[in-house]
């Protein structure tokens, strides 16, 4: 998020900034998944999602992700098309991806930090 608010001077190099954007997109997606789960019984509510692959590949760092309504889901009698199974899968998948990416970013930060500290000692 910091990268998007102050995108003139990123704190990290290319890999760090990409990871940051990845985490950012994952949290946006998780937000939509939670909204879908909360509205699983709301009449007329349509499932919301982002085109994850497209968003990550697009290089525009400060663009807002486009919310889409995925098609091909079964619409219930009340006009709601939330599939709890789909949302549960996405919830778990996003959490795992986030875990993985945050571990990567953490080790990235550790490298930065050790560079700073070693410089001070020497």
């Amino acid at each position, binding site marked *: 998020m910091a990268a998007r608010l102050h995108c003139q001077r990123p704190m990290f190099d290319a890999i760090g900034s990409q990871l940051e954007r990845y985490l950012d997109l994952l949290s946006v997606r*998780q*937000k939509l998944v939670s*909204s879908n789960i909360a509205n699983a*019984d*709301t009449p007329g*509510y349509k499932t919301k999602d982002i085109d994850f692959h497209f968003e990550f590949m697009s290089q525009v760092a400060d663009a807002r992700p486009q919310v889409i309504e995925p098609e091909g889901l079964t619409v219930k009698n009340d006009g709601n098309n939330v599939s709890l199974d789909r949302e549960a899968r996405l919830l778990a998948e996003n959490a795992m991806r986030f*875990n993985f990416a945050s571990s990567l970013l953490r080790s990235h930060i550790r490298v930065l930090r050790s560079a700073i500290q070693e410089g001070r000692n020497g």
Partner: protein
Amino acid sequence: MSLFSVLSVSASGMAAQRTRAQLLVENMANAETTRTPEGGPYRRKDAVFASEPQSSPFSSVFQRELGPVATGVRVAEVVQDTREPEKRYLPGHPDADADGYVSFPRLNPAEEMVDLMGAARGYQANVAAMSAIKDMIHRSIELLR
């Protein structure tokens, strides 16, 4: 951190499902109630959900910067069943009418049970979402250590 606003989305889902479960249990408890303060037999109640954008005054400006607004849920209204009560022939009953018929609530315990299971499952799904979000927030905080 937009993740914090997601917690309130899941919380709104939990609150809505809990209200619904409360009404369903109330319906089952009153399956045979023939007297109410409004007069007549008990009438089945149900919750109507409506989606609602979640934003606290503090974070509304911040959230505008952070992409799509999270959509929570709320109980828009509680509706009462308007169907005619079920008439049973019980001449000895104190609430029987002139012809010996008693008005009982028109509700089906099996239907209530199925709805209750749906509410419980919805509640569980919201709890799972909340713990996943909590885990993500925790991971983000660990980046600082």
